[in-house]
């Protein structure tokens, strides 16, 4: 009886771990060139604020060529396969946003792929 209870307990404890292991971590494709403007842990947390701050300066004050730029994000992080950051579930922006269940609406207006040269 005691043995059965112990087994049940072990099974119960193991279950959540099993469920978590079943969720795919986002695929993070390597950027195409050079280092980013900030370390990855800063970018992961701060990039929405950075972009939101910059959009006001760029649109209203006409400041271009700033360090923070969605266009530059896209230029470096566009996938080699799809050429985009948000075309497929594996693409850089889309994979994390799908994992975190945060709706990504930047690319309803902004281009999700770099300009063709």
């Amino acid at each position, binding site marked *: 009886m005691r043995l059965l209870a112990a087994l049940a307990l072990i099974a119960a404890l193991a279950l959540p771990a099993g469920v978590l292991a079943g969720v795919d971590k986002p695929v993070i494709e390597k950027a195409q060139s050079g280092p980013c403007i900030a370390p990855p842990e800063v970018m992961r947390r701060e990039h929405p604020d950075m972009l939101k701050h910059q959009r006001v*300066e760029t649109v209203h004050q*006409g*400041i271009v060529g700033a360090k923070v730029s969605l266009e530059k994000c896209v230029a470096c992080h566009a996938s080699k396969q799809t050429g985009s950051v948000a075309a497929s579930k594996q693409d850089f922006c889309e994979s994390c946003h799908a994992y975190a269940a945060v709706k990504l609406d930047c690319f309803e207006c902004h281009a999700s792929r*770099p300009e063709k040269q």
Partner: protein
Amino acid sequence: MTSRREFLSKAAVLGGIAVAPGLILFEPARAKGASSKVRWGMLVDTTRCAEGCSACVSACNRENGLSGGTRPTDSQWIRKVELREKATGRTLSLPVMCQHCAEPPCVDVCPTGASFKRADGIVLVDRHICIGCRYCMMACPYKARSFVHRPLHDQKPDVPRGQGCVESCTLCVQRVDRGEQPACVEACKAEGGDALLFGDLNDPQSGVSRRMRERGARQIRADLQLDTGVRYQGI
């Protein structure tokens, strides 16, 4: 290591100063942003604007990624308007776009602050804030604004546009900030029309100011006292 674009813009500024102070029409705003010292404007010489020519319209569509459709639900940033004076039969052809008013009615009526005038006089829509109510379209006496009715794909990286927002001529703000001329002006020149002239209305030495001083210019619906940035000759 400066990028090619930065190098070129610096070279353009230095080169312009070196050639002659009067010749350089404008310097790129870039990091400083839009300055209230300048007021961008355009001068349309209707006597040089050929009937049936729509080079400016197609250049605008190409530059800004517009479909080029002319249905009421399609975005049109420039329209070619053909006029005929009844009494004399004189015909006239002219492009009409956002007039970049100094007192823009679209900005007055915007409930969210999305419609705004930049320090350098360019009237824009901040699509991040636009809720698509279209009051500005009602308020504009020039029918200059369009509403995007359907989802868009493959926008130009420099010209973000999307469903549910109002938009209009930006005087090619992305090009102006790089120190270039609007696409329509360049296209008109390339076509040999030379009917469009872009420059700083505040600078008495600029091409637009000089030509306006010599030959005068009128505003469309000047009675509304909106002090438009786009002026016309020959109307």
